[in-house]
């Protein structure tokens, strides 16, 4: 990765804080007054309410409000069924209309009024405002709006540097889990995550940007952090600096997370009788830190495996060089071919689509370094698993 040099000083962007809570409170008054009305009505009312703030702030709070109040809800699931039953030829007479609603109500086991109330309940702007948990707190809205703001900048980033002074593990593992291209360094007491942004990746930028944005909510767990974002906003490249105090929503720990590619690979290796260590301790390589996903014992030797979601030719070369500098010879990198199109893979790299084929990886580990001083190609020729195959190596 090329470390960027910045001529412009970083800007500290204005995020929502205690100064904003009074106008957010007024906005919430409008929300309460609009309970039961369609969202469309609330949006119009908020647009024209005397809040003395720019339209973009109103829109930010409405976005946050949508996240607080949740989606369409359980009743929305039958809205389409209701429309299929009820909407047809025009009911020009009141008796026709009542009869059709009554028939639908009978079929659904509910009342005609309920049927009518369900007609547009799944449509974002037409469903009624509901506050089942009462009036949201002003700070909650501000925190969610801040989160959305920072995530938007991150999604438009060329690169970002995140420094944390405690418990970097979850951030690093999230970087690995989402396959972000990053270098991790130790800097005095801090850990620095130097992450490539979607705009520097040139491909799969939307997918990568979403993945990168997943880091932002985790910042709420850190009393001290510095996030430097070099991003493109409104056609201009800017450098933004975010540091506490920042209102952010508390981190939500998801109890049910699908197993990562590395976890699935670990399970498959274990099924083949191989001793697998999950998330071995970080490896220092000069000032950098390397975070392999797995360490395995194979024929008396210890191997490290790192699964990379996104990659470029340069990032792979750098990664391998860092392991070499750390004195790690037995390393296997697994790269997602869906996000690394057309790359020629070095011998230590196993391509995969969707999941890593454990047998192919083991074959690579056996054949890539029969003698650690003279890497040779696998007898399988191309070591990539799955259907997508890149051009043959020119080496």
């Amino acid at each position: 990765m090329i470390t960027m040099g910045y001529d412009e000083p970083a800007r500290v962007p204005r995020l929502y804080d205690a100064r904003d809570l009074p106008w957010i409170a007024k906005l919430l008054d409008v929300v309460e007054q609009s309970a039961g009305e369609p969202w469309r009505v609330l949006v119009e009312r908020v647009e024209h309410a005397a809040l003395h703030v720019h339209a973009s702030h109103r829109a930010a709070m409405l976005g946050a409000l949508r996240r607080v109040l949740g989606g369409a809800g359980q009743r929305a699931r039958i809205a389409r069924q209701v429309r299929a039953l009820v909407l047809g030829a025009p009911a020009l007479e009141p008796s026709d209309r009542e009869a059709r609603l009554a028939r639908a109500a009978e079929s659904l086991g509910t009342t005609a009024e309920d049927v009518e109330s369900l007609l547009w309940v799944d449509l974002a702007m037409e469903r009624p405002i509901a506050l089942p948990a009462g009036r949201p707190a002003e700070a909650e809205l501000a925190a969610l709006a801040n989160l959305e703001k920072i995530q938007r900048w991150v999604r438009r980033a060329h690169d970002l540097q995140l420094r944390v002074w405690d418990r970097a593990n979850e951030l690093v593992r999230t970087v690995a889990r989402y396959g972000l291209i990053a270098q991790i360094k130790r800097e005095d007491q801090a850990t620095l995550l130097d992450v490539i942004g979607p705009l520097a990746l040139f491909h799969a930028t939307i997918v990568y940007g979403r993945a990168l944005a997943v880091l932002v909510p985790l910042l709420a767990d850190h009393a001290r952090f510095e996030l430097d974002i070099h991003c493109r906003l409104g056609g201009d490249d800017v450098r933004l600096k975010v540091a506490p105090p920042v209102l952010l929503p508390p981190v939500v720990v998801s109890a049910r997370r699908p197993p990562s590619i590395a976890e699935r690979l670990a399970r498959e290796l274990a099924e083949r009788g191989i001793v697998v260590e999950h998330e071995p301790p970080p490896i220092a390589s000069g000032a950098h830190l390397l975070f392999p996903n797995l360490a395995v014992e194979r024929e008396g030797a210890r191997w490290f495996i790192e699964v990379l979601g996104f990659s470029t030719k340069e990032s792979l070369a750098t990664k391998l060089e860092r392991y070499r500098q750390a004195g790690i010879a037995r390393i296997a990198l697994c790269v997602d071919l869906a996000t690394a199109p057309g790359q020629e893979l070095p011998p230590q790299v196993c391509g995969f689509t969707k999941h890593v084929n454990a047998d192919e990886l083991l074959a690579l580990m056996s054949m890539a370094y029969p003698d650690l001083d003279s890497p040779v190609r696998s007898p399988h020729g191309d070591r990539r698993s799955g259907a997508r195959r890149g051009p043959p190596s020119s080496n």
Partner: protein
Amino acid sequence: MLEAEHEAEQPGDVPSAAWDTELRGWRVPADQYTALLALLAEANVRVSDELRNRDTCLTWALPALRWYQNTALAQWRAANARGVVALPTGSGKTLVALAAIAQLGVATLCLVPTRVLLDQWARALAAYSSQPIGRLGDGDHVVAPITVATYASAISWAPRIGDRFGLVIVDEAHHVGAWCPTEIFEMLVAPARLGLTATPPGDTGVLARHLGPVVYGLSVDDLAGTALAAYELVTVPITLDDDERRRYRELRRRFAAGYSAFQRKTPQGAWNEFVRDASQTIQGRAALTAWRDYRALLAYPAGKRSALRELLARHPDLRTLVFTADNATAYAIARELLVMPITYEIRRAERNQALDGFRSGARPVLVSSQVLDEGFDVPDADVAIVVGGTSSARRHAQRIGRVLRPRDGKRAVVYELAVSETTEISYVERRRAGLGDRAPLAAGGAS
């Protein structure tokens, strides 16, 4: 890439050539390909051109063209196969495009605005072609000698496939420069370019630059009764009741107070400047609120409500499209009469079911504010009822085009509901101008 073979040659003198520091070479935008070849030929420069072979060996079995389609095609070819053909909705623009592809016999990229049109075009091309049709968009990534792409997909694919086509066709070409970004055309070498539209924009500068000038155009009235169904345009005058009238006048007064203050301050100020300015002051916000409220009042007052019922009762067996000024009115009508709304919020599968129901007659009435205006393969309809709309002549022409698909003995009817003595009358007058003002405003109606 341009490279000089001899010292005296200066690639930088070629118009549009730019030095690429990364590649260390001179580059010319793809759309300058034809002009560059002509320039080099004139200068007797030997050229190695690896892009020449874009011919296809496709055979086409096309139906006979109508007189105006033949004329349009001939005019386009006479203009060196560059230009825009403007024909009304339902008059067979796609067939003109198919004939152009068949006559030129070159690989062709067809650009369309929506996924619905992507599917519609791909099916139309497949029906007459001997080879599979490529699709880019809506989850498909297949490139073939004849490929259809949405504007959005073309933006990302053009750098990779821009050298493969000899002809590019743009459907709904009035979107070029906005929805259809001009960058797409800069990445395409295709010398032949055909734009299709029912409603060319007033300023055709962007179109001319990237596709060519409007080479042929006919209006709805030129074809009504022959290639298009004959139609009757009926304006239905609506009267506000006393309460509505009082409220309308009060809201207009409040709006005028704010707006005239702005006009005094900024005589040349545009509407969006007024909106920006008004949102800063209490008086301005009151004016904006009044503006929004009186438009909501005019969108669906009691008179329109009863007129709509009466018109639907008058044509119980005919397929009818109801057009409204906004989604709120579309939903209000749908709820009131229990008919299907078609809006951007209704998802594709449900929309398709609704259109199937419309085709079969199970759902003979659809109500929409904008979605049905263009970009949808709407089945044949007989009656259009314009409950509300803007002053846009282009949108109005698109709406009317929805009922003009010809059928033996068909005579379509378009009703426009217009609230008398309000701003709505001026909207109706302005959009009528786009149709040649064929009917007097005080035509007979329902109320």
